[in-house]
């Protein structure tokens, strides 16, 4: 196998890349999707479904308000992701500390992960959103947006720390031995040798969790915060029409696609750099 094959193979949709393969792929795609479309459009209830879910007038009226509310989902997701990246990494590193001295720290990290990965996210959003204000603490903000974001951070930190940990454990112990044998401290070996390799390997599952988090920002609607889903809810109740939900759904899908392509690109770039001589 030559180098070009290695580079093009795994990341691209169409393997091989020959013109004939492309046309075969196109024809089969067109056939499959036209058949599906015909089945749906010719079904008995299509006319009704079309007006309640795919109403152009509703699209026109509510696309902008839902988009406006969706900005809050994005803000929450971005803030939460930045905090999670740091907290989860710290948690994963703590959990990988060796030796009996660090047992209490490891134990606490394990309890945290078990607890927050196990509890349903919506339950934690309720607990924080209604429970914390009920405590009437003086210096803790009572804004439901803030409290729900904290709940999401706690849950997803547990998930993401497991992703990091699997990455750390996937780096062969001989790498640590090589680093330590050169005189690097445990922390230096972790920082310069183990983590850079671990993080590269976990970018795809990390993105997976972040897409999950972005969708779960919709859970904040249960606290009455007007984000995309809640906005769609209000519109739908006013109009007796489900089109606003479809709009909200489209926005959620729309932001995940570029992220998926970005991950593909990052992985390919990394592979290319390590395989192809490293001139950036």
């Amino acid at each position, binding site marked *: 196998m030559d180098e070009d094959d290695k580079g093009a193979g795994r990341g691209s949709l169409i393997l091989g890349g020959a013109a004939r393969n492309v046309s075969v792929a196109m024809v089969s795609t067109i056939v499959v999707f036209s058949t599906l479309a015909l089945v749906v459009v010719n079904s008995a209830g299509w006319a009704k479904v079309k007006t309640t879910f795919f109403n152009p007038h509703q699209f026109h009226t509510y696309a902008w308000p839902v988009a406006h509310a969706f900005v809050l989902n994005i803000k929450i997701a971005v803030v939460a992701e930045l905090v999670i990246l740091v907290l989860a990494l710290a948690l994963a590193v703590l959990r990988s500390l060796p030796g009996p001295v660090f047992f209490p720290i490891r134990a606490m990290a394990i309890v945290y992960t078990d607890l927050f990965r196990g509890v349903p996210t919506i339950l934690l959003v309720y607990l924080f959103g209604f429970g914390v204000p009920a405590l009437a603490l003086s210096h803790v903000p009572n804004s439901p947006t803030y409290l729900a974001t904290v709940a999401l951070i706690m849950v997803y930190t547990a998930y993401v720390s497991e992703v990091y940990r699997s990455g750390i454990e996937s780096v062969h112990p*001989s*790498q640590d*031995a*090589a*680093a*330590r*044998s*050169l*005189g*690097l*401290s445990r922390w*230096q070996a972790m920082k*310069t*040798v183990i983590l*850079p*390799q671990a993080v*590269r390997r976990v970018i795809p599952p990390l993105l997976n969790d972040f897409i999950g988090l972005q969708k779960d920002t919709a859970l904040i609607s249960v606290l009455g915060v007007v984000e995309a889903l809640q906005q769609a809810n209000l519109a739908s109740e006013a109009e007796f029409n489900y089109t606003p939900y479809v709009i909200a759904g489209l926005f959620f899908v729309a932001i995940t696609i570029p992220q998926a392509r970005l991950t593909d690109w990052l992985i390919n770039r990394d592979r290319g*750099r*390590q*395989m*192809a*001589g*490293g*001139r950036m």
Partner: protein
Amino acid sequence: MTPALVCEKVHKSFGKLNVLNGIDLSLDEHEVVCLIGASGSGKSTLLRCINLLEPIDSGRITVAGRTVTARGVDVNEVRKGIGIVFQAFNLFPHMSVLKNVTLAPRKVMGMSRSDAEHEAMRLLEQFGLADKRDEYPDRLSGGQQQRVAIVRALATKPQLMLFDEVTSALDPELVAEVLGVIRGLAHGGMTMLIATHEMGFARDVASRVCFLDAGVLLEQGPPEQFFSDPKEERTRQFLQRIIEAGRL
């Protein structure tokens, strides 16, 4: 003269398995000692214990007059003075050759980037690897990778070099280039402890050959005597098997 390395009654076990059963071994400065013995005889474990990658159960290891197995010794300081090269190269795959070599000088010795790179280039040139400075390990042949690993170990200016079967993972035609590098170091006066299966090489470069059997240093002597007239029955059996395999 203070010996470069002294191992006294070194014991090491993994669970119930006794890997090292009281090793006594001493290396003078500029001495090149080859450790031979079957797989599992404890060669690798001894090297890892000297480099403090494995804690010993009892006994004492002294490097250049300093007891390194004592409590409270700064292991990173000790390791800086001892270079080790592994069978599987263990280069850092996410770093270029130059980064691999300059990592320890920068992080451990506190050298500036330009000084470290200057020094690294001098070493890479010496070993014919200067044109590989920006390559990543995956792109190099096994022999080149192992030579880079040797350069990386030399970059902290160690007084003692340990080699753990460094040619065992190489294709036969690549063995010579790596052994050549070690030969060069021997001529340069480097103190070295070399675990190897390459008997011809051991006969050539070693000032002394040690035979390790089931965690015991069974026999040692100058290579001429060791290979032609071994004293112990176990040594004779081992060498016989090596000859039958066509490796001597």
